[in-house]
């Protein structure tokens, strides 16, 4: 056993599935052996640059998978250096959409106009040399916020470069607000295509709201209303579990949606999806006030 979890039994070890499994087991004494093996897997597979690939069959680091591994490691002592190098990798991966130099030059010239609004904000991508999207940006943003909290409470916050993260976090938040759909909420990251409004999705809305965790923001409130409106019809256990996490962070009732997820488990056994199972366990824990995504912890 290499200590990892795949997305379903028998599949290759995946960073995302391993991260969620570790988070869900973190407080369980009976799972110490599995946790130890899981953390050892992450230690072994972290690259020298601090990143993780999406699974054991890939050779290229991914910032979004790295953020999830980093989030999981926040629950475990003795992983501080792994988290710090992970944060470094994520910050180095922060960037704009790649643009041909001629268009980049045009962007730069337009930036001198007082009415110019930067549309190509920096964020994170699913894979290098592509555009920035809501979900990878949300994971990286959440990890950096939690990492910043962890180093701020440590003995030497400056040594971990915590202050350098603040402008990165601020710009990533701006990117998320910019990508919000007009009715509130988020889809994968396009509010409009060819002049047509696109609709948000419950799952990505919950993920973005978890990353932002800003109840005083009108945009977050509008998106919460969208999520509350749509979640009663939701048939995705993954989306329901993320909605439970999200609502628990914003002080909204969660039990009906946990119940709905449980009913889906009875119907489908979550299609044997390890990530969904782990998120369901985490959602159950969040009913007791334990939420690994919370910035109040």
């Amino acid at each position: 056993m290499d200590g990892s979890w795949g997305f379903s039994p028998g599949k290759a070890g995946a960073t995302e599935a391993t991260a969620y499994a570790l988070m869900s087991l973190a407080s369980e004494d009976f799972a110490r052996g599995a946790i130890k093996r899981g953390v050892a897997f992450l230690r072994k597979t972290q690259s020298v640059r601090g990143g993780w690939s999406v699974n054991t069959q890939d050779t290229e680091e991914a910032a979004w998978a790295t953020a999830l591994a980093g989030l999981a490691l926040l629950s475990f002592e003795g992983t501080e250096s792994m988290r710090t190098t992970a944060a470094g990798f994520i910050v180095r991966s922060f960037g704009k959409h790649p643009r041909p130099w001629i268009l980049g030059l045009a962007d730069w010239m337009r930036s001198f106009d007082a009415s110019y609004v930067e549309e190509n904000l920096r964020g994170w991508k699913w894979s290098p040399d592509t555009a920035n999207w809501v979900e990878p940006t949300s994971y990286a943003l959440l990890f950096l916020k939690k990492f910043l909290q962890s180093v701020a409470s440590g003995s030497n916050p400056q040594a971990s470069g915590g202050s350098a993260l603040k402008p990165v976090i601020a710009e990533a938040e701006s990117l998320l607000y910019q990508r919000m759909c007009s009715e509130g909420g988020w889809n994968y990251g396009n509010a409009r295509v060819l002049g047509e409004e696109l609709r948000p999705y419950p799952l990505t809305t919950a993920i973005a709201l978890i990353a932002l965790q800003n109840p005083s923001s009108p945009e977050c409130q509008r998106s919460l209303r969208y999520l509350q409106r749509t979640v009663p019809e939701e048939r995705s256990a993954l989306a329901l579990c993320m909605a439970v996490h999200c609502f628990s962070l914003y002080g909204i009732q969660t039990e009906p949606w946990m119940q709905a997820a449980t009913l889906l488990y009875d119907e489908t056994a979550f299609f044997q999806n390890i990530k969904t199972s782990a998120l369901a366990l985490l959602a159950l824990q969040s009913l007791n006030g334990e939420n690994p995504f919370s910035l109040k912890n």
Partner: protein
Amino acid sequence: MIQFLSTQYSALIMTQPPSLSTQHSALRTQHVNRRRFLQAASTLGVVSLAGCAERKPTWKKGGYRKPNQSRVAILKAASYDRDLTSVILDGIKSFRLDVAGKRVLLKPNLVEYERDTVINTHPAVIGAAIEAFLKLGAKEVKVGEGPGHRRDTDGLLLASGLYPFLKDTKTQFVDLNLDDIRRVALQSNFMGIDSLYFADTVLQADLLVSMPKLKTHHWAGMTLSMKNLFGIVPGIKYGWPKNFLHWHGINESIVDINSTVRSHFAIVDGIVGMEGNGPIQGTPKPVRVLVFGDDLVAVDATCARVAGLKPDKVEYLQNAGEFIGNLEESRIQQLGEPISQVHSPFAVTPAFGHLKRLI
């Protein structure tokens, strides 16, 4: 809930895979998309200043499989309530398709779910295809898809109505986005890269069947059996959306994927298609046909002709027609209904007005 909790904990502990075959040390040099840069530069008239010219896309010997003659069958199917299994059996039997003892993977088009829309391959067509291939002696039939926008494939299976069909026939569904992945050398060079990762279940199937919806597409003109194979490219590697493919060119990606991974058969759901601003926001268009074939270029070209569009003006079909399959009407033997009998002109977005053909 306690039982649920304990089952889930056990599942988590039990599912740590046994071995690690990782290659984390080697990190590839980031690919600079010279081709895309040249396209942009060309638009701005700076190519001549740069003093360089674009390399003509080529294909390897393994990517060439254009037959002398292809066959496509158009069979009428009035609605999703009818006995579609017998129609699909008739369609498959029109071809020399060796199904007995084979592991069959059906790849439908499941993109999004919105009530009262016709975005996805209808579950009744998928259910009927499962039954048909089992009746023809397939060793196993799986259904696999890697949706391009939604990570919660579980919800898509339930909301789209596909899950009851899978449950009734005890058919395994594979989320190709979360499958094991394997890197494969591309057999043509339109994207300007050497290789792509694909879902392993696809590569292991003896018979891959592309089952798209007959739709227009606001970036590619049409989305049919060839474009449908975007779903075999794993989201876990390339994301949601699979922006990597867009970044390297949708038309170019379609050709390189289809030259590299062979789909042995196609069944197009044209009972109700989508016209206008497809593939998501278009309008339902009843055509009342299922289209079958073992040459995907010929199948897609025929579907375009049924929709009143010129296949040779669809960029990816034009390129694929050079080496993957037959585009020309003279090289496609029409089985079942003649095109003129089912011809049903589709509306397209203004950007694709040049596709419209006069019959």
